[in-house]
């Protein structure tokens, strides 16, 4: 026992006070503030501005109190503040139920909790709130950057708890221990992430605002009602072709089909659904895998034209289920898509559809409301006059539009009641919706069945991972004309005015002076390259990490050699791996112990050996006394025993012990044999 180095005597009585600090120490407070700040920062883009301001002020107030070493504000004041926050949240959202008001309340509560802290329990509550809020960001965004923010937030929260448990440790030691805990927690996370039995959510109905599904497509279309089409670079879906992708001009991804027109607005008709397509796929086949971002609609946005070949359709994620085909050549999901999902599909672009179309469909594709767009209908009658067939009319309409010098723009003027008339004869400026709408109205006016199809067109191949990326800005509208014997023929009227839109994308089609968001500009090569790299990384993240679901888990386990595994096997596997990990940690805990102090270890070996021989060292006996007693008891080895005990005493209590001496003693003890 090294009683020489007694440091301090702890006293009873001070213990109770140290368990419940009256307020935070500066160190604990700073860690907690940092944890709260890092947790709340990603929420800044999703919460209303006043909540962000309120949170920032409350945190600033707390920091100031901490700096000035003042006590927390009075309870009544805090209570009033809390009530005020509750009322304000109620005003903002109109209710308390649901994700958004919940997150807002949590954020405000965290900041108020920081002000209220008086005891260690309050700190723990604040840390729990931090964890909940880190989780809440994931409703909005699960990108790698957000994951990194959550990781740092967790680390800061852990360091806060460390500072709470041990206020006397140095900053650096706490940061190190926090990082160590995090590093030791990671294998468990990986194991649980991969092996925890995954169930396909939801377990119960989701609140309406549960997912951040935003659609680039709407199920109505009113050309002329929008004067400035905002172009979003958000990704709508990603496609991975198993071979080479089809030509850009054949990349039409079908969404809603608009048949009904009331003069202003195009609406989708409720289609007839079936489990097999209404056409016979033919021509070249393209196999691909599409990863759809949630859009809260049933459209699968399949490449024209999807078919149900062997293994042609397989989905996972929340929208999984048998895919439905419609008489409008669409593929539909059984439910609106609420989470990112992946589907394996095949497309036959050369297929003829609607060869035997029903009379009802054709009649609907001819209907025009009376009293709208008189000049266009007059024009249509002129174009139809004397034409031998629908195909001739189609040719005439196409050449009329090509020759009428229409301009493609994202900022068309607003149009009045007779939108098609104004577009064709006055403004002559518009985007795909204007073109498709005017074209379809002309054809219907000329007695040819036609309809508008919305969806996406084109897409950009990311050179890093070879995936085709289709953005919201690739949203498009085109037309389909029914010709006897050929079925529905796709015509893209936009291509008549701006063929680049189809061949090379939006940016190429726009006239000079119309700006696109920075990330979509073609001229900044390095920026595009950077964006490609980032998107390839994000895609890998989406597919591997975010897309890990029950289906993917089955595949992963199968690749490990576990064929069909149920819950019991997964739980057993999890426990097994968990025990191995815990065993590793236990080994670490005791390995460090054995690593310490070779001198003490040799001495213990020596004492143990003599104890077995019947001469145990008494607890109070120092090495010299013990040596003398041993020398008397074992006179034949007295010299050696005295030498060992004396050199132990010298190395232990004297100054200037070095490794060589310790090794020498160690050797001496090892070579010592009782006779």
């Amino acid at each position: 026992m090294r009683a020489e180095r007694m440091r301090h005597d702890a006293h009873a009585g001070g213990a109770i006070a140290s368990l419940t600090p009256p307020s935070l120490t500066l160190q604990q407070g700073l860690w907690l503030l940092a944890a709260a700040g890092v947790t709340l920062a990603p929420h800044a883009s999703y919460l209303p501005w006043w909540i962000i301001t309120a949170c920032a002020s409350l945190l600033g107030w707390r920091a100031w109190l901490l700096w000035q070493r003042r006590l927390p504000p009075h309870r009544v004041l805090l209570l009033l503040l809390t009530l005020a926050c509750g009322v304000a949240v109620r005003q903002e959202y109109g209710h308390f139920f649901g994700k958004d008001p919940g997150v807002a309340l949590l954020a405000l509560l965290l900041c108020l909790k920081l002000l209220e802290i008086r005891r260690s329990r309050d700190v723990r509550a604040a840390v729990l709130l931090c964890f909940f809020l880190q989780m809440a960001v994931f409703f909005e965004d699960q990108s790698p950057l957000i994951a990194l923010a959550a990781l740092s937030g967790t680390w800061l929260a852990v360091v806060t708890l460390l500072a709470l448990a041990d206020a006397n440790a140095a900053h650096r030691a706490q940061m190190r221990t926090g990082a160590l805990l995090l590093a030791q927690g990671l294998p468990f996370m990986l194991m649980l992430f991969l092996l925890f039995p995954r169930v396909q959510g939801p377990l119960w109905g989701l609140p309406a605002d549960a997912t951040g599904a935003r659609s680039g497509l709407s199920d109505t279309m009113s050309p002329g009602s929008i004067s400035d089409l905002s172009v979003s670079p958000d990704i709508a879906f990603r496609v991975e072709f198993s071979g080479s992708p089809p030509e850009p001009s054949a990349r039409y991804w079908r969404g809603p089909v608009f048949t009904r027109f009331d003069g202003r607005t195009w609406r989708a008709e409720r289609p007839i659904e079936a489990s097999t397509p209404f056409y016979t796929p033919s021509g070249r086949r393209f196999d691909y895998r599409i990863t759809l971002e949630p859009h809260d609609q049933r459209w699968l946005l399949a490449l024209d034209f999807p078919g149900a070949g062997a293994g042609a359709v397989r989905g996972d994620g929340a929208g999984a289920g048998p895919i439905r085909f419609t008489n409008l050549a669409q593929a539909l999901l059984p439910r609106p898509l609420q989470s990112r999902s992946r589907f394996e599909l095949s497309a036959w672009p050369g297929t003829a559809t609607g060869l035997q179309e029903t009379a009802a469909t054709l009649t609907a594709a001819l209907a025009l409301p009376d009293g709208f767009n008189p000049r266009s209908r007059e024009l249509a009658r002129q174009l139809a006059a004397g034409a031998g067939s629908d195909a001739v009319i189609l040719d005439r309409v196409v050449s009329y539009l090509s020759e009428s010098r229409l301009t493609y723009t994202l900022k068309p003027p607003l149009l009045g009641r007779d939108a098609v008339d104004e577009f064709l004869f006055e403004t002559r400026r518009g985007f795909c919706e204007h073109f498709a709408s005017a074209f379809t109205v002309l054809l219907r006016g000329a007695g040819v069945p036609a309809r508008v199809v919305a969806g996406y067109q084109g897409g950009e191949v990311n050179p890093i991972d070879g995936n085709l990326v289709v953005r919201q800005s690739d949203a498009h509208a085109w037309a389909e004309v029914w010709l006897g014997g050929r079925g529905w023929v796709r015509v893209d009227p936009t291509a008549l005015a701006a063929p680049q839109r189809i061949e090379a994308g939006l940016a190429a089609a726009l006239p000079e002076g119309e700006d696109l968001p920075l990330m979509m500009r073609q001229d900044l090569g390095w920026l595009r390259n950077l964006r490609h790299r980032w998107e390839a990384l994000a895609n890998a993240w989406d597919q591997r990490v975010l897309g890990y679901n029950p289906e993917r888990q089955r595949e992963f386990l199968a690749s490990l050699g576990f064929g069909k595994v149920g819950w019991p096997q997964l739980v057993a596997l999890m426990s097994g791996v968990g025990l191995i990990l815990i065993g590793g940690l236990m080994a670490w805990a005791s390995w460090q112990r054995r690593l310490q102090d070779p001198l003490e270890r040799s001495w213990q070996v020596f004492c143990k050996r003599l104890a077995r021989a019947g001469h145990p060292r008494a607890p109070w006996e120092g090495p010299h006394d013990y040596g003398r007693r041993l020398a008397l008891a074992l006179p034949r080895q007295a010299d050696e025993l005295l030498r060992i005990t004396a050199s132990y005493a010298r190395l232990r209590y004297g100054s200037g012990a070095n490794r060589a001496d310790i090794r020498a003693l160690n050797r001496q003890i090892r070579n010592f044999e009782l006779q």
Partner: protein
Amino acid sequence: MPSATQPLASTLRRASRAMVDRWLFRLDRPEPSPIVLHQRRIYVLPTNAGLGLAVSLLAMLIASINYSLSLGFGLTFLIAGIGIASIIHAFRNLFGLSLSAGRCEPAFCGESARFVFHVTNSRRWRRPALRLRLHGGETAFDLAAADVTNVELASPATHRGWLPAGRMTLETTWPLGLIRAWSVFLPDLACIVYPQPERAPPPLPLGAAEGGNGRRLANTGDEDFHGLRPYRDSDSPRHVAWKALARGAPLLTKQYAGHRGEDVVLDWHTLPATLGDEQRLSRLTAWLLAAERAGHRYALKLPSARIDAGQGEPHLHRCLRALALHRASDTPPAESNRDAR
């Protein structure tokens, strides 16, 4: 000992605790020092905060499943993993600690007995946030790397006789406060508790001395200064040698000699018959202290023992010890030379 008047619940709790001590912790008899905390005697359970976190994690897991939040799973499992790692850290904070019973100064009944333990950290890293608990009292301390600390624990002395340190726990909730690791032991350490001195005892029975051979010194009064001796807790502040202290001397107590050398016999049997046993012991204790303070030679007669006249601190403690152990129902725990005087 549970009596019939005690509520059944507390009796049951006590019985179950005794059973747990016996079967789980294997606490049968005091164990000799040093007590080294090995793997098998360190226990871990979640604290209330740990249970709270577990419930929160469950909620986060359900939310992750319901909303198919992959990163939600990741965060939940990461925090769970950190929690598991913190179990090992808590365990490691105790693992290999060695604890040996120190000393315990005799205490008077009604005061608190102060047990001292030496806790040794033989490792090269710090062991923070340790707590030693005894009879509801606890002391928090940190151990520096390769360090020995004396930890003092106060325990109320409510009965005269032997006060064993009894069931002690050494625990820590480091690192995150989620897990409590602890170890239970019965150290081989007992404190002797003297009877409580009577508050206002009658004067010393000087005249009753056998033979009346007291040698009163001529011309010396009751309050004559006799000498100095080291200060003891029981000394009155009025007798502290403040002047000596001001000169830089340690805390000393002035001794007064009035009846120097006079023999006093403090006899159990001569006390009034109306006094109960404990009252007799209290009075004798007070008289012993008074006699020692006054500088008399004093003898003690008890039904069970007789101590011849003597003087000085060892004699006083011998007498007080005889009083403390008078018909003590508890047989003293294993006699140890550390706490006997």
